[in-house]
């Protein structure tokens, strides 16, 4: 039983149309069918947050969605955050400057989660940042560098807007 469907969706502004088995998760679709391996899979049951993507601008765990459910929707992955191949987004700059990553495995999920969070909450407190990333596990940094990076990014984004 290998039921298939055609899925048409936009990822990072680019339109894709692919035939996919209906049981394939959105995470596997993004990685294996579209070749966008920036989205990472840690636990595959919705605990680690590494596979977080933005679905129509809202963060979601791509391991907890089927690819067919994304038909007609707009997705942003970590590859879509930087404005160009040679520039980083202010959030990414802040991660680099504040030791917001070491091995980098959790980083795609941290970045996508914080893109949504800083959009909705441009001037957060440290406590709010900690709650925002509570669904993203990091085993390297002890979180402090990530929290610092998020607070720094909020300042940079405010300056950029001013």
């Amino acid at each position, binding site marked *: 039983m290998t039921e298939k469907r055609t899925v048409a969706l936009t990822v990072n502004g680019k339109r894709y149309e692919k035939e996919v088995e209906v*049981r394939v998760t959105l995470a596997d679709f993004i990685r294996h069918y579209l070749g966008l391996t920036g989205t990472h899979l840690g636990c595959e049951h919705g605990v680690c947050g590494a596979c977080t993507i933005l679905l129509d601008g*809202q963060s979601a*765990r791509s391991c*907890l969605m089927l690819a067919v*459910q994304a038909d007609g929707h707009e997705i942003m992955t970590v590859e879509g955050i930087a404005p160009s191949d040679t520039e980083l987004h202010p959030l990414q700059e802040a991660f680099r400057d504040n030791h917001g990553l070491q091995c980098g495995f959790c980083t795609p999920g941290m970045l996508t*989660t914080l893109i949504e969070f800083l959009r909705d909450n441009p001037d957060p407190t440290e406590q709010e940042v900690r709650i925002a990333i*509570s*669904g993203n596990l990091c085993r390297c940094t002890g979180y402090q560098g990530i929290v610092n990076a998020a607070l720094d990014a909020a300042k940079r984004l405010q300056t950029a807007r001013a």
Partner: protein
Amino acid sequence: MKPPPFSYYDPRTVADAIGLLARLDNAKVLAGGQSLMPMLNMRYVLPDHVIDLNRVEGLSYVREAGGAIEIGGMTRQRELEFSDLIRNRLPLMQEAILQVGHRQTRNRGTIGGSLCHLDPAAELVTVGAGYDATVVVTGPAGQRQIAFADFPVAYMTPAIEPNEILTAIRFIPWAPGHGYAFVEFARRHGDFAITSAAALLEADGAGRITRASVTIGGAAVLPVRARETETALVGQVPTPELVRQACESCRAIEAIEDIHAPASYRQHLAAVLSRRAVDKAITRLGKPVPARLH
């Protein structure tokens, strides 16, 4: 960690979804997917058919009707988190929602999915019991209503027939100025509660409690209304000592034991958290709901 093979259906109407449920054997209904998808990935469930409700029209809404707040079964937890109507009329629910999972899961997770999954530690299940909500299910014979007290029939088993879908849930708001509080104990923010407590209180002008609802979640296989505590509070002008004594009966709860905590620990938490919830609800009596519960 990949879902097993199944046939997939994405009906556009409730009638079509029910028709599929009636026709197909070993079918599972997919709502927000924040519980079913992990179970599929781990192959705890092996359905032959998955019926996805995400494209069904008209199941996502929050509205006031006839003195009740009605919420569509497919309403995302995120919408409840940011709804002014929910904050003003059902503040206990909004306080609880903020402790449901994480932003990423609330963006997808639905109220109907949470209630049908019926994890005893789920915040929304405890909230439903605390408000004496009414569950509206739709099946081949039309709609029927289930009082929340009759909704959980056993561990993770709601009183829904295999050919029915939860289409709405109704809450009767408590009087303006009522007290409310949802507190829980979990190892990490966003984890399922090891034990939680929800309190609703109404009081007269003299500060005497006229109505009380106290619910313990996560401690037993089903949410438990602490009737003895409620009875001990009603008619009293509460003092810290009175509340402590009233909540002591929660210690007798028939608690579950698992890797997170032994039964005796949950019984202890039931007494402590119910007291904290009632104390917090008392401080909110007679006050308007703040602009942010966060």
